[in-house]
């Protein structure tokens, strides 16, 4: 029977939740890296026991951790062993060296002035679909880094910051590159999203990039609501069978594109609020999508104190509330952008974590939910691995 491994990053460590394919009885391991902010953990699709983790701290900066045994043990790639007498190799400890290429440049600051780029942390790690040693990393301040040696060294794909980056600006949570979507049919095509710069696409493996924000409207956030860049995109999701179709949770608005981002249209429909953070696609139904409406950008909690996942089986516009097993009163948690994921079992499993420390799972496509754990630190990210 297949197994499920849920990788949970929290404000104070990482947790790994495992279950068999029934997804009823869960084992919890952790905290791993107790006390550290774990922004994101994600396994390699090629080698599921290879897991990368972003470990960060306001005191000690950024670290990258790697497990080669499914999360039982961890090492900092390349720096795991103090050099002994037999070790005459070059200095190690480069796995947390994220250096912007060339002139660091400036971006727009909150007050409209220009502000120099400063590396703060890695928000998101996206392992390659074909090579376990290749990983993309999304940084705050926004930039895309890549390793091809299993995380030992990282190099910026600096062409991205040539796309009007002087107009990019931090959102309330910082100017993070938080979304990296790899096209499974075209290794040269990558989509990324940045708060608050927008969505971008490369068709040449990351050398050059295009803003893909046509159709997005930010009438209260930008002087030109139709601007090329500057939109606060919160999350993009794609079904692997249709890599040209993307779904977006923007700051406000749910959007979709059917032509790889050339044009977006709004599909918020009957949602109680179209503000929110995560968005995801059902593993087997490419027109079935999930969001978690949040009341507003000023009030980061569900409308009416009811935690509701909304599902559209029509690719947007028509939404139904999924509430069975979720708190329907006095609930004021948030669900962050990287904190929702789906497994690939039948029926599809959906998982999300909250800032209140709950991780909810549904083993029936969202019809009903159970809290796998209730009392973790605030959840920053949730990823799922479906294991043979």
């Amino acid at each position, binding site marked *: 029977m297949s197994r499920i491994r849920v990788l949970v990053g929290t404000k104070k460590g990482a947790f790994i939740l495992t279950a068999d394919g029934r997804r009823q009885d869960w084992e919890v391991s952790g905290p791993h890296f107790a006390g*550290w902010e774990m922004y994101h953990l994600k396994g390699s699709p090629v080698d599921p026991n290879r897991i990368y983790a972003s470990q960060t701290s306001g005191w000690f900066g950024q670290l990258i951790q790697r497990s080669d045994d499914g999360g039982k043990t961890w090492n900092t790639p390349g720096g795991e062993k103090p050099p002994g007498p037999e070790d005459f190799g070059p200095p190690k400890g480069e796995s947390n060296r994220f250096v912007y290429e060339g002139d660091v440049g400036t971006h727009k600051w909150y007050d409209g002035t220009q502000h120099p780029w400063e590396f703060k942390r890695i928000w998101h790690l996206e392992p390659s679909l074909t090579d376990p040693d290749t990983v993309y990393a999304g940084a705050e301040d926004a930039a895309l880094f890549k390793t091809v040696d299993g995380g030992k060294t990282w190099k910026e794909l600096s062409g991205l910051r040539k796309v009007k980056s002087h107009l990019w600006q931090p959102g309330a949570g910082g100017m993070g590159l938080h979304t990296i979507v790899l096209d499974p049919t075209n290794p040269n095509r990558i989509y990324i999203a940045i708060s608050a710069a927008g969505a971008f696409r490369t068709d040449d493996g990351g050398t050059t990039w295009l803003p893909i924000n046509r159709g997005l409207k930010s009438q209260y956030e930008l002087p030109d609501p139709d601007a090329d860049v500057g939109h606060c995109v919160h999350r993009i999701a794609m079904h692997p069978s249709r890599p040209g179709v993307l779904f977006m949770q923007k700051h406000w608005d749910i959007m979709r594109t059917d032509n790889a981002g050339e044009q977006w249209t709004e599909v918020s429909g009957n949602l109680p609020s179209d503000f929110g953070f995560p968005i995801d696609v059902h593993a087997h139904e490419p027109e079935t999508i999930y969001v978690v409406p949040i009341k507003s950008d000023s009030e980061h909690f569900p409308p009416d104190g009811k935690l509701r996942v909304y599902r559209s089986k029509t690719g947007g516009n028509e939404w139904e509330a999924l509430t069975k097993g979720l708190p329907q009163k006095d609930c004021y948690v948030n669900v962050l952008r990287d904190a929702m994921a789906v497994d690939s079992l039948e029926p599809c499993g959906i998982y999300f974590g909250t800032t209140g420390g709950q991780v909810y799972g549904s083993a029936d496509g969202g019809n009903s939910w159970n809290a796998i754990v209730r009392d973790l630190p605030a959840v920053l990210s949730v990823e799922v691995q479906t294991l043979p």
Partner: protein
Amino acid sequence: MIRVALPYHLRTLARVNEEVRLEVGEPVTVRSVLDALEAAYPMLRGTIRDHGTLKRRAFIRFFACKEDLSLDPPDTVLPEAVIRGNEPLVVVGAMAGG
């Protein structure tokens, strides 16, 4: 031998349980001690001082002999008691209480 006391999270990262002892050539300064520390424990590179600029991270402090050395230039020679190994150079994560 120069003694260095690390904060909890960096001891965990370096997989040491107590003070670190390092051979450091003269002059014994914060810079030369950190160079030796990072050579012996490369996983600590970037955690105490920035990778590129080697500037002390904002929330890191250096204490020795009941003195705060954080703002001293990094090439300042450390106190004799540290050089003799009688006292450790203490790396401290700035207090963040509530």
